[in-house]
């Protein structure tokens, strides 16, 4: 297991989550250092999203604990979330809000009194200033994803959590998302925790990958080290190998 660099912005130990007869997460431990770019990978049903939701305090673990920037969940969830931004490719924008209004709303929920400068900067960073007056339900999935990421970064979070940020995006928009995220992490020192099924994207964006299968962490290291650990050429092959294993042994 590789050690994270810098002070940890996220620490989780022994996370367990059981849904009736299914153990979705079984003892996951994860630490993300400041400015570190980490991918949480695994086949469908591996426990990635449940783990993310526990890290964000949306789902409470049966066992284990989560600490974000020194704030232990769930009691200090509000303080912890002041340092976290979250976006997901599958989340729609609320209807009946213009993009500018949506971003102002969330800027203020993050505690910024007048988020106008942050909104303008965020839209410019992803080249979508022309969307300010568009209604949320008029956007394409790519535009929605970009707006969601701008929303998640308005308050300059120390940790950005993205669940499937480029799912269903065309290669051009996916590249703009990657480039924008790369610039953000470089400029702000933001740590990144991403789930994705696009292994090429992960190799380009993240310096560390954590593979989850059957609710457990089965590999943690650089993309090259993890591929070597499984005796595979690249992350794509590791993913396929773990997905086949999951099919053979669904328990």
């Amino acid at each position, binding site marked *: 297991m590789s050690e994270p660099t810098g002070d940890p912005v996220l620490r989780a130990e022994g996370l367990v*989550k059981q*849904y009736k007869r299914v153990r*979705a997460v079984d003892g996951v431990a994860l630490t993300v250092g400041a400015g570190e770019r980490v991918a949480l990978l695994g086949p469908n049903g591996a426990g990635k999203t*449940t783990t993310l*939701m526990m890290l*964000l*305090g*949306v*789902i*409470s673990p*049966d066992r284990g604990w989560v600490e974000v920037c020194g704030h232990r969940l*769930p009691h200090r969830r*509000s*303080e912890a*979330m*002041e340092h*976290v931004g*979250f976006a*997901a490719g*599958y*989340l*729609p924008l*609320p*209807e*009946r*809000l213009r993009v500018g*209004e949506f971003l*102002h*709303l*969330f800027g*203020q*929920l*993050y*505690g*910024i*009194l007048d988020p106008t400068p942050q909104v303008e900067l965020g839209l410019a960073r992803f080249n979508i200033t022309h969307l300010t007056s568009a209604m949320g339900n008029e956007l394409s999935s790519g535009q929605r994803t970009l707006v969601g990421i701008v*929303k998640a970064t308005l308050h300059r979070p120390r940790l950005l*959590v993205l669940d499937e940020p480029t799912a269903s995006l065309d290669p051009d928009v996916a590249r703009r998302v990657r480039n924008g995220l790369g610039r953000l992490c470089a400029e702000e020192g933001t740590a990144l925790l991403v789930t994705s099924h696009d292994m090429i994207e992960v190799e380009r964006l993240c310096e560390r990958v954590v593979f989850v299968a059957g609710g457990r962490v089965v590999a943690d290291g650089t993309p090259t080290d993890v591929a070597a650990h499984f005796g595979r050429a690249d992350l794509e092959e590791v993913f396929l190998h773990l997905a086949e294993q999951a099919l053979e042994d669904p328990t």
Partner: protein
Amino acid sequence: MRWVRVKAIARRHWYVLLRAPQRWFDVVIWPVVDAVLFGSIGLYFGSQNSGGNGEEAAGFLLAGIILFHVLFQAEISLSTGFMEETWSSNLLNLLTTPLREVEYGAGVMLFGLFKLTMGVGTVSLVALALFAFRITSLGLALVPLVALLLVVGWAIALFVIGLILRVGQGAEILAWGFIALIMPLSGIFYPVSALPGALQPLAEALPTTHIFEGARGVLAGDGLSWTEVGIATAESAVLVCGAVAFLVAMLAVFRKRGYISRHV
């Protein structure tokens, strides 16, 4: 509690009302319909009774329906405010911000007060314009009665939100269902003695029954019964404590069982 977050939530719901014409039904159309309906019923039946005074009967019914709208608007604005987040899949967005539950509730209640003012204002104006009935004829007694109805409305909404968190969007109908259940039991237009005997103990247990009883006493010229206000206050306090405890428990279940997956 951060005021900036409370204001942000209130403004978000203002945008929804502004851009969803169907939402004006609750705050304008329904109050007009109720005022015309109950004012007309009162006038007609009042004039049919020998020696009856149609305007007085209309006044009793209109006072009842105006005060009922305080309860209804308070309850419906808070519960539909929360439903809006589930309808627009915004719950996960909100739960991953620093927003505290109490800040969210305060924001929706703040905007709910605005909706309530519009709804109750509409029904009161129609009552005045068409039936010459002034709700202000209740005088200062209005203050405790309205305050109690507001609190009871919000408490019922907290129960509804708790149920939506627990069983999902199927529970949304209860936002209207609970009010429909409470309406006949509370004796909005008649004393509790008019109810079937078996239902009277149930009616007495509701704070709304004592609030409307208090209002009828004022209209009849007997002044405000502080006994009724006292009972209503005590029952309201129990209701609020129960509602808050229920909501906290349902939120814990929501987080424990991962019910957020129902809302994304």
